[in-house]
C-alpha cells in the first residue's frame, strides 16, 4: 500500500443518508455473475491476475513452521512452472499479493520468504482475532509485536462493541469479515461496500482498498469478484494495492483451471503441489 488514508472528520450524516434497496442489490449480484463470463485465453489471463490479488492465508490452530514454509513457497511459486511456461508467463514474476498468518507465526513467515527470495509482504491478523474481545492493551501490544517481527500489513478486527454503539475508526482497506463467520463474503454485501468506497472517493479523493475473505473457493467465483470490482469501481482498483482476496484453497482451484486450459485435461488434486 503506497499512501495511507489521511482520514476525515467523522460525519455521521454521511451514513444516515444512505439508503440500501436490498432486493435490487440482490438482483444486481445475480446479474454480475451471469453477465460477464470470460472464456478461453482471456479466462486464463484473468485467473493469473486473480492469483496476484490473493492473500494466501493459513489461520489454523495447528500452524507450525513447516506448513508456514510450504505456504510461503507456494506464495512465491503459485502456479506450476511448466504451466506458466506453456502460457509464456514464467518470467513475469507472478506471485500472490501477500501471505497472511497468525501473529505468532510472523517470524516463521518472514524467515521462509527470505529463504525463498520473495519480497511480498507478510500480513498478520491481530487484535484478538477472530472475536476481538480482548483488552485494548493486549491488542495494541499484539500489533506492535507483529510489526516488530516483520509484518507490514495488519488485518485489524474492529471492536464490534464500539460499532454497535456508533463509535467508528478509519482504515486503508475494508474487509468483508474475518472469514471465520458463518456467512462471509457475499456479492450483495460486497456491492454495498464497493459503492461506499466509490462514494468516499468522490467525496474526499481518497482511495480505500477492498478485501473479500472467507468462502471464496472456486476459480469461477474469483472471476466474478474481479468483474464486480471492475464494474463498480473501474480498472484503477484492480491492483494489489487496492484489492485483495483472502483465500487458501482458491489457489488450488485456479491452478487446476490453468492446468485444464494448458493441457485440455482435468487434473486431480495430487497432480499439483500443495500449499
Amino acid at each position, binding site marked *: 500500500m503506497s499512501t495511507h488514508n489521511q482520514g476525515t472528520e467523522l460525519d455521521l450524516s454521511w451514513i444516515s443518508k444512505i439508503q440500501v*434497496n436490498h432486493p*435490487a442489490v440482490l438482483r*444486481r449480484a445475480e446479474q454480475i455473475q451471469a*453477465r460477464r463470463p470470460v472464456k478461453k485465453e482471456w479466462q486464463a489471463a484473468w485467473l493469473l491476475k486473480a492469483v496476484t490479488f490473493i492473500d494466501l492465508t493459513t489461520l489454523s490452530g495447528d500452524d507450525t513452521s513447516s506448513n508456514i514454509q510450504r505456504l510461503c513457497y507456494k506464495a512465491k511459486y503459485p502456479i506450476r512452472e511448466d504451466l506458466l511456461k506453456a502460457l509464456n508467463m514464467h518470467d513475469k514474476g507472478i506471485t500472490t499479493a501477500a501471505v497472511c498468518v497468525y501473529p505468532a507465526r510472523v517470524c516463521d513467515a518472514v524467515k521462509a520468504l527470505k529463504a525463498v527470495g520473495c519480497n511480498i509482504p507478510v500480513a498478520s491478523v491481530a487484535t484478538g482475532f477472530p472475536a476481538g474481545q480482548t483488552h485494548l492493551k493486549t491488542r495494541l501490544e499484539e500489533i506492535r509485536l507483529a510489526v516488530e517481527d516483520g509484518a507490514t500489513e495488519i488485518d485489524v478486527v474492529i471492536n464490534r462493541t464500539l460499532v454497535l454503539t456508533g463509535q467508528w475508526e478509519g482504515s486503508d482497506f475494508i474487509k468483508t469479515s474475518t472469514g471465520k463467520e458463518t456467512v462471509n463474503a457475499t456479492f450483495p454485501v460486497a456491492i454495498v461496500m464497493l459503492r461506499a468506497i466509490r462514494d468516499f472517493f468522490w467525496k474526499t479523493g481518497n482511495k480505500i482498498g477492498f478485501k473479500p475473505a472467507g468462502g471464496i473457493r472456486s476459480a469461477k467465483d474469483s472471476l466474478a469478484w474481479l468483474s464486480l470490482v471492475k464494474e463498480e469501481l473501474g480498472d484503477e482498483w484492480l491492483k494489489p494495492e487496492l484489492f485483495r482476496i483472502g483465500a487458501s484453497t482458491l489457489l488450488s482451484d485456479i491452478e487446476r483451471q490453468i492446468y485444464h486450459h494448458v493441457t485440455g485435461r482435468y487434473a486431480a488434486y495430487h497432480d499439483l503441489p500443495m500449499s
Partner: protein
Amino acid sequence: MRTGVIGLILPSTFSFLEMMWRICPALAVGCTVVALVPPASPTPLLLAQLAGELGPFPGIINVISGPASLGPVLASQPGVQKVAFCGALEEGRALRRALAGEGAELGLALGAEALLLLSDAADVDSAVEGVVDAAWSDRSPGGLRLLVQESVWEEAMRRLQARMGRLRCGRGLDGAVDMGARGAAARDLAQRYVREAQSQGAQVFQAGDVPLDSPFYPPTLVSDLPPASPCAQAEVPWPVVVASPFRTAKEALALANGTPRGGSASVWSERLGQALELGYGLRVGTVWINSHGLRDPAVPTGGCKESGSSWHGGPDGLYEYLRPSGTPARLSYLSKNLNYDSFGLVVPSALPAGPETGPTPAPPYGLFVGGRFQAPGARSSRPIQDAFGNLHGYVAEGGAKDIRGAVEAAHQAASSWAGQSPGARRALLWALAAALERRESALASRLERQGVELKAAKAEVELSVRRLRAWGAQAQAQGQTLQLGVLAIVCPDEWPLLAFVSLLAPALAHGNTVVMVPSGACPLLALEVCQDMATLFPAGLVNVVTGDRDHLTRCLALHQDIQALWYFGSAQGSQFVEWASAGNLKPVWVSRGLPRAWEQEAEGAGPELGLRAARTKALWLPMGD
C-alpha cells in the same frame, strides 16, 4: 365461453415473449389464432409448423408473414372475432378507424415507453441499475422517461453517466453484452429523436462500449429538454432516456400523468408511505416499487389512456379472449356510406308539437347536470310524444356545450366518489332504490302512457329497484375496484327505465361518475329518477343530457376526456362511435344496432357489465431488508 378466431398483429420489433403472451391464453381458452408477423422474422413460422405437427388439431396457430398493410385486411376478414394489435400508436389509431363497423372487437396494446420516478429517499445506485434494466438492455420494451427529484439530481446524473460508461453493446447472442441492436429502423428513429432534442436545446450524453457500425446505437441520456418542446411530448424511443427534475412528489405526479401514455412506471423510494402514495397516484397499468420490469404470467399487464386497454396475463388476459355465454358470433355491420364528418353534426329541426291535451300543461324538464336541473345552452326544448300520439312532456335540447359542462361536472365529482368506501357506495345505491320504490306509482303511470301494460310497468319498476340493490350489494362485497373515471352511456330507446337503471348501477358501483343520454323515445322516466338523485347523490355524480341522440353521441365520442363510452343505439351510431374513439383511444362498447334483452339476468345484469365498468392496475412491491 371462448371468443372464436383471433387475429394477432405484431409490429416489426416484437419480442417472442410478447407474441407468446397473447397466443397462449387464446389457445388455452379454446380460440384459434391467425398471426400477421413482419417478413423478417422466421420464428413464428417455426412455431406454426410445430403447432401443425400436433396431430388432431391442425390450424390452431396460423402465421402469415407480410407487410403491415395487411393488418386491416386480416382484421376485416369475416369470421375473425377479435383482433389483438400490439405496436405503435399511430398504427393502432389507424386500425381502430379502419375497423369501425367490422365485426371484430379490437384490443390495443400501444407504445413501449416506461417511466421511472426517483425520489430523494431512494437508493440511487439501485435506481440507476433500474434505469439500465428499463432502458439499456435487451429486455427493455422501449425508451424511458426519468423523473429525478431535484435534491438528488447531481448524484443521479453522475452515477448514471458512470454506469453508462460500463455498458457494452454487441451482438445479442454474446452472453457478455448488455444490449444488442434492433434494426436500422429503430436506430434511425432514435437518431432522429436525439438530433431533434439537441436542436430544441437539450444536453445529450452518450457512452458505452459500442461497435461503430450500424445498426448499433449507443445508450443515450438526454437532459435539460424544455418541457414544452415537441420532443418532450413525443414517445421516447429505445435506447434513449430523457431525464427531467421535479421538486415535490405532487409535481412528480403531475409531470408523470401529464402525457397521453399510460403504460408502466416504477417508483423508487425507501419510504414506504411515499412510494405507495405515488404508486396509487400514477395513471398507468403497472407500477413497480423499488424495482423495474418484473413480470409474471399470473399478473395482468396492460395500460390505460393512449397505451390501449388490452391486457395480457392474469384473469384479465383471459377475459380478452372470452365473451359471455350465449352471445352470438360478431358479424360485420359496416355501412359503407356513413359520412364520419357529417354524422350527428347538425341537429334536424323539429316541427312544433300540436296543442297540448291533458289536465295540466306539461312542465319542461331541464338537463340534469352538476346535481341540479339546468336550462340547456340552446335554450330550446323538444316535445316527447306518448304511445297514443299525445304530448307527454318537454325535455331540453342539449348540445355540445352541455356535454362539455356535464363532463366537467362528472370530473369534479370523480375523485371524491372514487375515494368513497364500498359501504358508502352501497348505501347510496340502496337509498336510490328506496326512493324509486316510493315513486313507483308515478313511474308506472308514465310507463303506461308509453304503452306498457300496468302489470308489466310495475314489474319493470320492481326489477329496476332490485337491480339497484343487487349492484349495491356487489359493490360492498367486491371491495375497492379501480374505476375508469368518467363513463359516458347512451341508453337504448327501449326499456326506458330498466335499461337506464341497469347501466347506471354497475357504473356507479365500480366508482365511476357518469354522463348519460337517456332513451330517445321516453327520456321522462330517466328524468323522474333524476329528481331523486338531485337530493340523494353528490353533485356531478350522475349527469343526464337529453336532445338529439346522434348529435350528443357525436359530442361524447369525440370528447378527449371521457374514459369509456357505452353506446346502445343504431348500427350507424355504433360505427361512428368505434371510429371516433380513435381520438383518445377510449374503450367502447356498442350494440351494433342489435337489441338486448334487458329484462333477462344474463344480458341486463350479467358480469359483463361489471367487467366493463372497471379497470385493473398491477402494483409490485418486492420484500426484503
